[in-house]
């Protein structure tokens, strides 16, 4: 039987995890990170923020409901977060060879084969996660047939790789939102379209300042924010105006950098759907979806800015806000997909600011 062949995950520290292959039978290298979400593998795997990463899912049973079809709605794939799988490889414990769902059109394995993404199942993902938790995110490679060398995605401008090359318009409405796409998840665009605004989606290095807009949005995206210098420069200019600015995830970090703050790399990041974030100065706590390896340093916030949200688990920054101007951003993902939708109201708050001019 085919099952006899083994695939290996080799980590930079020399440790090897052996399991069975599924998906493509290629070898791939990247940064190994873990996500503790229990649902949403199609959404997670197509999130551009995972660019260059080998993803470990801690929930053991994966592939249960297959993969949805490639339907298009509003010029976007309806059931995915971008046009393709962004992870380098997938590491899980137990693969469901038989999926079952009314909206599935293929198995997870076939979908990964199409995208040339290798996967390994039969791995003690808990043991692997504990290693990543203690030693930090680590380089690793999936070896199927041929051995390859390690690859560090953080040394590249990942934003450039996932950002679109051209400008696209979406939706209808009186107000115009400018989205700087540094790896934007489709559901952010959908969230705006649903709120009846006109969206202009531009590449990460696009000089949006030459255009008129009512609100500026800076998206999520992969890697080290300091790599996206062009975006930071453009935001600096926008900050001199009074138009509302909203950022999510990488957008939070880019806004902080543009305003004069600093960012740093977390040991193993936050990748999950259960991160509690407290709105500072209140007893309100929100359960959020997250996916980031870098964070804003709250001790080096520029003058005029303050912390907005903090992580209830580890106290890291989860959002910043300008004390007077309509500039704010969050580290978590109000657009969810995957994850809880509890903070979707932030889109409303932003649109309200936009409408109030």
């Amino acid at each position: 039987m085919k099952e006899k062949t083994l695939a290996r995950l080799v980590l930079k520290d020399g440790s090897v995890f052996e399991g069975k292959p599924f998906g493509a039978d290629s070898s791939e290298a990247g940064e190994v990170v873990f996500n503790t979400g229990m649902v949403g593998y199609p959404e997670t795997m197509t999130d551009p923020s995972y660019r260059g990463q080998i993803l470990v899912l801690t929930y053991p049973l994966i592939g249960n409901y297959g993969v949805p079809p490639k339907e298009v709605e509003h010029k976007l794939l309806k059931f995915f977060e971008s046009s393709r799988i962004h992870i380098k490889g997938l590491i899980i414990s137990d693969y469901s060879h038989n999926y079952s769902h009314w909206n599935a059109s293929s198995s997870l394995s076939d979908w990964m084969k199409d995208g040339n993404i290798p996967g390994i199942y039969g791995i003690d993902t808990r043991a692997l996660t504990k290693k990543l938790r203690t030693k930090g995110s680590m380089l690793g490679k999936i070896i199927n047939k041929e051995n390859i060398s390690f690859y560090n995605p953080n040394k590249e401008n990942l934003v450039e790789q996932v950002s679109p090359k051209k400008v696209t318009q979406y939706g209808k409405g009186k107000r115009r939102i400018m989205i700087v796409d540094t790896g934007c998840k489709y559901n952010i665009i959908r969230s705006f379209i649903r709120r009846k605004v006109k969206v202009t989606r531009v590449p990460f290095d696009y000089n949006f300042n030459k255009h008129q807009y009512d609100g500026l949005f800076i998206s999520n995206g992969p890697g080290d924010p300091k790599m996206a210098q062009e975006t930071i420069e453009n935001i600096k200019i926008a900050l001199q105006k009074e138009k509302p600015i909203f950022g999510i995830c990488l957008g939070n970090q880019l806004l902080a950098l543009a305003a004069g703050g600093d960012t740093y790399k977390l040991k193993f990041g936050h990748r999950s759907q259960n991160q509690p974030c407290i709105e500072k100065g209140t007893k309100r706590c929100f359960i959020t979806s997250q996916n980031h390896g870098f964070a804003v340093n709250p001790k080096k916030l520029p003058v005029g800015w303050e912390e907005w949200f903090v992580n209830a688990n580890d106290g890291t920054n989860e959002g910043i806000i300008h004390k007077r101007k309509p500039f704010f951003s969050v580290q978590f993902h109000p657009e969810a997909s995957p994850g809880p939708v509890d903070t979707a109201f932030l889109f409303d708050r932003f649109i309200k600011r936009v409408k109030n001019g």
Partner: protein
Amino acid sequence: MAKKTLILGSGAIKIGQAGEFDYSGSQAIKALKEEGIKTILINPNIATIQTSEHLADEVYFNPITPETVEKIIKKEKPDSIMLSFGGQTALNCGVELYKRGILRKHKVKVLGTPVKTIEVTEDRKLFVDKLDQIKVKTPRSIATSSVKEAIKAAKKIGYPVMTRVAFALGGLGSGMCIDEQELAEKAKQAFSKVKQVLIEEYLAGWKEIEYEVVRDQYDNCITVCNMENFDPMGIHTGESIVVAPSQTLTNKEYHKLRDIAIKVIRHLGIIGECNIQYALDSRSEDYRIIEVNARLSRSSALASKATGYPLAFVAAKLGLGYSLTEVKNSITLATKACFEPSLDYIVIKIPRWDLEKFRLVKREIGSEMKSVGEIMAIGRSFEETLQKAIRMLGKDMHGLVCNDIKFKNLEKELQQPTDERVFAIAKAFQQGYSVDRIYALSKIDRWFLHKLGNIVKMGKKIKSARKLSKLSKEILKEAKQNGFSDYQLAHLLKTNPDEVRKKRLQLKITPFIKQIDTLAAEYPARTNYLYLTYNAQENDIVFNKGKQVMVLGSGAYRIGSSVEFDWCCVSTALTLRKLGYKTIMLNYNPETVSTDYDICDKLIFDEVSLETVLDIYEKEKPLGLIVSMGGQIPNNLAAKLHERKVPILGTSPDSIDNAENRHKFSRLLDDLGIDQPEWKELSSIKEAKRFVKRVGYPVLIRPSYVLSGAAMSVAFNDQSMNAFLKLASKVSKEYPVVISKFINNAKEVECDAVAFKGKLVCWAISEHVENAGVHSGDATIVLPPQYLYLETARRIKNIAKAIAKKLNITGPFNIQFLAKENQVKVIECNLRASRSFPFVSKIFKVNFIDVATRAIMNEKLPKIEKSAFELDYVGVKAPEFSFSRLKGSDPILSVEMASTGEVACFGDDIHEAFLKSFLSVGYTIPKKNIFLSTGTPETKAILLESCHLLKKMGYTLYSTFGTHAYLKEHGVSTTPLYWPLEDKKPNVMDYLKNRKIDLVINIPKNFEREEVTNDYYIRRTAVDYNTPLITNTQVAKLFIQAISQYQEKDLLVKPWSAYREEGVHR
């Protein structure tokens, strides 16, 4: 903040309301105590941990009725009350207290969810209207208040329809009706108990999904766990196999339902914990909200154990006004309670049914609960977890496959589920059914079916190796990863489990121990909440072979083994901790307190089987195992573990064998000159008849291996003897029957005791109210005995002493006796804690388990004053039956146990204690009309005086014609009613169905199990129409005496501590 809080418990364990409320109540008390709040607990369930000395400040063993609670409120003057920790019983009582204005009058504040909200969730119409306000979907439903209205509503919605009953626990009175006739019958029954019945759209085949939701007063709202039912809509969630987290839901479905849950709970204004149930279409994202339980529930106990998130504890804190961000995560100790657990394992719950214990009961499962307990398995693959779960049920099933089970009609079994459906699916796969065909019949999601198919395939793969020696390492490992036990492998490869184990150890294929940490390894956990899995490469914990002791738990609650053994296990663990030992608890019942991770140092949530215990023992190497606290399951492992050189603490396994083995024990009694009923083990029907001829009828017949008297019977003549032997067609050398002389009109007496190195340390002699012939688990028990000769008691104590010495007992033991005119015979002896240990411990205020544990550990024993056993109050323990839930079952007492739970109350005399405990299990003092059918001439004579008494008290008596004639002759006038099977009026059935009778006394003429009779109809109808029923002569007599001396208002409310003081100082 609150200073003194009243907590309502849930009373006796019954179907639909089991041990989960001991867990939730105990957690609530702990949460309150931490804040320095004085806690007052009302719960007559004496076997619970929450009613133990170390928890609440005051405990009242009283019925949970508005009348009693008001008396206690007046006495204790609490400033607040918690209603959501004692199941439906507490909730209903709380709502009633609120409605009657009692809470307002005494300025008692309801902590947590307001009563207004509870009322909305309990009244279907209010509920639907409220949810309509926020435009979420509920099933099409019409509230009706008469049978006629119900029929009209059904026509509007279209058959089939669902009937539902408001304010019901465990879905009582609900079910599918396919036509008008069925609906009319069901509605009539339902209206006898409630004022409102709902007729609803039938959603069969939809997925059933639940969320556990927590909300604080600052509007923070989270879902702690979601669960998916393996069985689709149509089967009560308490009757379903349940999986956590959901398995077949996409991100969108999961979070859509989660979002709706939060919206609904905020809109309702719940503070604390609740559960929301959905139906989800299996072909779209359409959904319906089925219900919201605004209290801790069975599902929340399951969710707590499944995730490690202490729901009840957190709910109590939120009830006090804390915010979720202020309560800490007690697993990590580093993070806060405001988060949603992430699981990196799968959890499966399966209900445990004991339907075969009941005569004439229907085996189909559906929208009403029939299961008596449940188990939970944890693993890292569905296959592994399911097979573990099936074994945990303790129904002699070895996993999904390798069982001796046959189906007459497989298709029907798949379509109309019984308690054995999961095995029918395995059988169907073996017979070549496709997934689609099984789906078409069962509507169980194909994902689950594929997983079951995988197990069947794996079985075939193992079998194809033909011999153990030819089984490759890879396949052996794969088999273990798919949950195959050593026994299953041995069965498939025609060898024995020891050989499989040997090979496994040679190949180093052993399970790994993993930790449950609520955050899927993102943060380190500080608690040792553990399970075993083969789907792993490393252990999460380091094994330090310190001074640790392992306690084996009692497994699934079932008829014959319930919360009392959990109390024993928890008490042992607490004493061990006091003595400075590290403890490992092994158990797998999510309804228990023993599976709270703060009870022991390491909690291993896994099988209590030889294989698993050995696997754990070899890793942990504890000093030894305590097997005498968890009832029969651990006790049965003693000899096997001993043979394999695992140290068993306490009484030696050889002695256990000497007591358990009937032949050895009998010889031992002969040696000691102790009398026993004449008995013989017989392997043929011919031999059996010869024995009976010699000793004479009646005789007690039982198959060789039994727990709580399963399939035991008393034969009074050749006819019933033949009937039994026909049933026991398997009688052979391998399956012998034991027949013993049954002694009529004998008293049954129990002795619970603790010995140390063969010397009696403490003991309790208690008497049964019922004569011999009623299983000891169903008996009403009195302590100290009130009608026992001193000489009999002295003899019993001496026998206990002699047996303890002979068997060199160290630890707990229990002996059952027959007593007649100072003649004492030993029926049975168990060298373990018995069902009545919590009862005698709490009545005597001497914790027998604490003493036993010290004895077992060879530690200094406490000095027990002789006067501790001299009481000037009485304790009476009464059984709770769940006959009303077991449709069709004959509500009768026999040598087979049928009760699901028990209570015990204190009184200044036996009548007060007896009446309190009977009120606690749902009896009411009759207002006016009593129906009498008093049995044989002998029993009629015994009850004559009682009938006179009833008449004197002014009751109107109705009777059967036979009883009428007898009573008339002796000067008691009654109105005779015709038998159910007679087509004449006035008929007893009309009186029962119209609820004109307040109490039925129906004494069966003998103990035979037979066909449907007039008596059966009377008993069954009484139960179906919620009319108190007494079927035992001695109980009837005592009950009548009690009500002649006490009215409800005379019954004292006195805290446990007040009784104890009296006990200690005099």
